[in-house]
């Protein structure tokens, strides 16, 4: 009797690579996060609920998620533009500007926070001009958005750039020769090609914004109910010896973030499949 041929993919090494992948993710991600779940079980259900649904906690979720979303949206638009400029035009200093894009990655976030605060506070280089117009950035929720925009800047640029680079300019020329207007080219040719990458960058920037702590605490003002981000609230709870409350809030924030990131990633993947199929 002949042995049934084993069904396997054409690519060898699946067993080993998935094993290492799972072990690695388990060690680096799942084990630390599972202590969160364990830590919050110290609280009873009622205590857990009152910790995570306290007005101060709700206000912090609103600020953290809202500011991260806004900052990621700004970066989506501006990132597309920066990537476009860097890939489609040749001009002196292009490499320098290209290098600048990565700086927010390299700079310690606390340094970024202090610098932004200095610039945007009422006597600062920019704040001085915004203040008479009634716009306050430092120590307001707007400051949080500015800080998160800064730290999230590289993501969309860096995800879109390689796609744009591989997209031959002939495609646009062909569309033009077939009578498409400039707007049509952007809408029908470029955007569909770039959107999956841009969405991925958007999700990364958003995720970064949700967890960002170092730069925000300097510029936010940190007032309860108004300019207090969730990561700071968690720190404060810990410093008040309220470990249970801190882990409960952390857990809820984590689950909410995961749900949103998962949904956004699905959206990006669907877009990608669409673009490839088209």
């Amino acid at each position, binding site marked *: 009797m002949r042995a049934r041929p084993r069904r396997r993919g054409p690519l060898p090494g699946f067993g*080993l690579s998935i*094993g*290492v992948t799972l*072990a690695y993710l388990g*060690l680096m991600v799942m084990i630390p996060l599972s202590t969160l779940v364990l830590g919050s079980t110290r609280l009873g259900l009622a205590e857990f609920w009152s910790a995570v649904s*306290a*007005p*101060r906690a709700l206000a912090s979720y609103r600020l953290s998620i809202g500011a991260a979303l806004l900052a990621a949206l700004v970066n989506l638009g501006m990132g597309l533009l920066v990537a476009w400029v860097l890939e489609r035009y040749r001009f002196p200093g292009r490499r320098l500007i290209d290098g600048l894009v990565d700086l927010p990655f390299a700079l310690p976030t606390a340094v970024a926070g202090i610098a932004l*605060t*200095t610039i945007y*506070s*009422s*006597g600062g280089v920019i704040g001085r001009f915004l203040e008479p117009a009634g716009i306050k950035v430092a*120590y307001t929720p707007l400051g949080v958005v500015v800080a998160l925009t800064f730290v999230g800047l590289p993501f969309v640029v860096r995800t879109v750039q390689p796609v744009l680079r591989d997209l031959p300019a002939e495609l646009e020329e062909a569309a033009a020769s077939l009578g498409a207007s400039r707007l049509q080219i952007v809408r029908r040719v470029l955007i569909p090609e770039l959107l999956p990458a841009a969405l991925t960058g958007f999700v990364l920037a958003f995720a970064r914004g949700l967890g960002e702590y170092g730069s925000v*605490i300097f510029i*936010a*003002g*940190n*007032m*309860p*109910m108004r300019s207090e981000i969730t990561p700071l609230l968690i*720190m*404060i709870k*810990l*410093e*008040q*010896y*309220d470990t249970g*409350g801190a882990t409960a809030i952390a857990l809820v924030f984590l689950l909410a973030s995961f749900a949103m990131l998962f949904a956004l990633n699905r959206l990006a993947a669907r877009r990608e499949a669409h673009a490839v199929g088209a």
Partner: protein
Amino acid sequence: MPMLRSLLRPAAALAAAAALAVPALAAGRTMLNVSYDPTRELYQDVNSVFARQWKEKTGEDLEIRQSHGGSGKQARSVIDGLEADVVTLALAFDVDAIARAGQIAKDWQKRLPDNSAPYTSTMVFLVRKGNPKKLRDWNDLARPGVTVITPNPKTSGAARWNYLAAWGWALRQPGGSEASAKELLRGIFKNVPILDTGARASTVTFVERGIGDVLLAWENEALLVVKDLKPGEYEIVVPSVSILAEPTVAVVDKVVAKRRTRELAETYLRFLYTPEGQEIAARHYYRPRQAEVAAKYASVFPKVTLISIDEVFGGWDKANAAHFADGGTFDQIFGVGR
């Protein structure tokens, strides 16, 4: 699982290397003093003098490390396993928290004289030169148009002390009540644009970043700014009533038992009560306990009526539950209470 074993082996080797490296680095003895935010300069001085004395007495090289931050955060680190031989924190409540976690004996505050507070301080207003907003007392801080800088009472010892000082002042006013005190604090915090987590961060906000009309500061921190850091640019305003702040010190029993440093740690803390230790404290603008040293430095410290936490608030546990715990008066003035 062979894969897991092969993963763990390098990790184990790394851990072993780290364990070997630590004793090799530390020749002589080491000790860690975990302290609160503005004591950096004080303990740098204390440590160098004490290490010299210790070397003369025992022949041992002694390296004292120091760690600083908001008092609550520092206590949290010790509870979570930072191996502090001694803690020198901003208030007894934070040492109590470590004691509750079982790392310090419950009766710690009776083990040293003066409630285990070798030096005291109080809360004052640091204002810009000429006091342009004419701030004289606590009620001035609640005036519209005044910007007040203070750290977050949830995390900072200084902020708790100055919150309670303002509260105590309001109670002593004619017709003063819990309600009027809460109203005053609500007014003050309406004028606070930024809450840093520690006293030093607030000083930086006020002095280096130039934000605010008044910083509610430790007296020692205010004197440091006025006399040493920026002479001539700031003034100290002493309110009519302030609070007797007793920063407390304790040996961390669990750690000294493990590291066999009890004798060293106890000698170190007792050094703070010696005339020499008291002199160093006074030079760094902490009010000394010892009468002779206090007399010598009397001109440095302004006269101020001091209320005590035990008399007015019935001790830290009660004060914390009423004001700083979740739902306490601090939460209430932000509309968070329920």
